[in-house]
């Protein structure tokens, strides 16, 4: 068991700064999610931790050991790849056993550990198949199993669910989390999907253009985003931003507000504001109504299925405790 620490880690590819000055401490047994848009440097950060990419500056620790110069196979980590990277010519059993055999684990232990992983991941009936004969979900479980049997210090996962369909993805999300809690192994999980990040992470590190924007629990990121980028990236539908002038209210700076704090007009809210409906997203249990107010667009949240039509006027107000303020120039939270 070991934690992981990035200390001022940077990575350049020629003129591209893929990761800048990344400092991040991941506790032993913690599930840390790296999230951010495509190209923000998440994969590069993960690959540096794995040893698949050289580190341009700074240091990476696994436990107390600086691993900058340590070969990947000496780092005692296991990685789940986006495309699974199963060995095509080997059976599922051999895929799972491969890493153990390379590490000279005794045969009886290999049998036991593979059987255990196969049981947990429901792979028992598939052990003699080859990867070409597996469905996407099965291949994904084999990839997880290959990491699991290794019993490494750290699990690394790079968008492991992105090749599954939506339903399977939701299901597997829970499964990965359950497995991780069972084995209590430090995990670094990369995704561009903020829903995955919010539902899986003990803590989340939000990255943007190679920089770490904020680290915190899902709740912290949601309630107290450090800047406009994080505020806009976390939560769906996203937070709306406007200035007081745009909507005709006397509010300072740039205001951010999430849909659940924008409600149809009633006493006690800030307002009333009037706007024209631009879209209606009725999900059954709730309805999101996009409203154009002057230059700004806000999203109104209504319980249940609201009968609204695009183009109609709507009167609504803001919940004061839900307003967040950001510096107009730097975007930093105030």
């Amino acid at each position, binding site marked *: 068991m070991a934690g992981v620490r990035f200390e001022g880690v940077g990575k350049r590819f020629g003129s591209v700064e893929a990761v800048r000055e990344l400092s991040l401490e991941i506790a032993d047994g913690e599930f840390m999610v790296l999230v951010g848009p495509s190209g923000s440097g998440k994969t590069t950060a993960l690959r540096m931790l794995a040893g698949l990419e050289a580190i341009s500056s700074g240091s990476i620790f696994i436990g107390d050991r600086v691993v900058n110069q340590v070969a990947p196979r000496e780092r005692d980590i296991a*990685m789940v790849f986006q*495309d699974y*990277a199963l060995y095509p*010519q080997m059976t599922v059993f051999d895929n799972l056993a*491969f890493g153990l055999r*390379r590490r000279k684990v005794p045969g009886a232990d290999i049998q036991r550990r593979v059987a255990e992983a196969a049981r947990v991941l429901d792979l028992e009936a598939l052990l003699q198949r080859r990867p070409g004969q597996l469905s996407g979900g099965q291949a994904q479980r084999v990839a997880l199993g*290959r990491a699991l049997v290794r019993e490494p210090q750290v699990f690394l996962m790079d968008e492991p669910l992105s090749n599954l369909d939506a339903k399977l993805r939701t299901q597997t999300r829970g499964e990965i989390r359950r497995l991780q809690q069972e084995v209590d192994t430090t995990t670094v999980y990369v995704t561009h999907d903020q829903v995955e990040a919010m539902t899986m992470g003990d803590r989340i590190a939000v990255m943007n253009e190679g920089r770490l924007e904020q680290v915190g629990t899902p709740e912290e990121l949601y309630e107290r985003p450090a800047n406009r980028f994080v505020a806009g990236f976390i939560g769906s539908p996203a937070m709306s931003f406007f200035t007081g002038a745009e909507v005709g209210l006397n509010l300072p700076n740039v205001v951010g507000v999430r849909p659940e704090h924008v409600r149809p007009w009633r006493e006690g809210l800030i307002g009333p504001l009037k706007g024209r409906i631009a879209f209606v997203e009725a999900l059954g249990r709730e309805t999101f109504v996009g409203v154009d107010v002057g230059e700004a667009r806000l999203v109104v949240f209504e319980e249940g299925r609201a009968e609204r039509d695009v183009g109609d006027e709507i009167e609504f107000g803001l919940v004061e405790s839900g307003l967040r303020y950001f510096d107009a120039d730097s975007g930093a939270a105030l």
Partner: protein
Amino acid sequence: MTSRAEQTLGYVILGVFSLIALLPIVGILFTALQDPDGVAAFGSLNGLHFENFKTAWEDGNFGSYLKSSIIVSVSVVFFATLFSILAGYAFGLMRFRGSTVLFYLFLLGLMVPTEAIIVPLYYDLRDLNLTNTYWALILPQIATSVAFGTYWMRTYFRTVPRSLVEAARLDGASTWFTLWRVLLPLARPAVLTMTVLLFMWTWNEFLLALVMVSDESLRTAPLGLSFFQGRNTSELSLMAAASVIVALPVVILYIFLQRHFIRGMLAGAVKG
């Protein structure tokens, strides 16, 4: 979707070109079976005189020529394949200083024809006392084959998903183990195709054999064929029979191995 008419047209065109390709081969076969004492006419069938092959074999001393050809070809193909796999692996999947320059150097070997280097090569090998030995045929052909083979295997290794190699690295496999146990089983169609091509080229090499060896017992089959031709210009059917004898090993190897590379191509297609 192709219409019926288009499909028919396709078959007709393919059929015509197949005929054009097949006719000379059939012609040689027919000629090889002609009555040796009859009037020789290329491509006509006037009986089945299998004894022509026996006569050609004995007259042409093919027992010795084929032995030399096999020794040279098998050695060249074996070592060239081994070296090409190793070099292709390095150029295809490893990052190292100077790899681009080195690779172009290999390509140079691919582009220079034997005719251009044969004279200096002769003097070099003579200085080393290697002319008139099998080495004079084997070593230069390993070199030229490795130029092609490295290019071929590098292209193959470039198509292997990088993550597969990285997964093996993280699993604790050495680069050596990754090559032989993870990558090569997948590379079988590519390696077999290369083997057939190298074997064919080595088997048919004429100029090098002509220049480097003069000892009768070291001569390879294509050379035997040409000397044969000089002695038996009038005997067209024996000449054709000798050609069949020389070409047969390559054809047999191709038929034997083609099953594998067609299967390999299909496997790739099904997985998409």
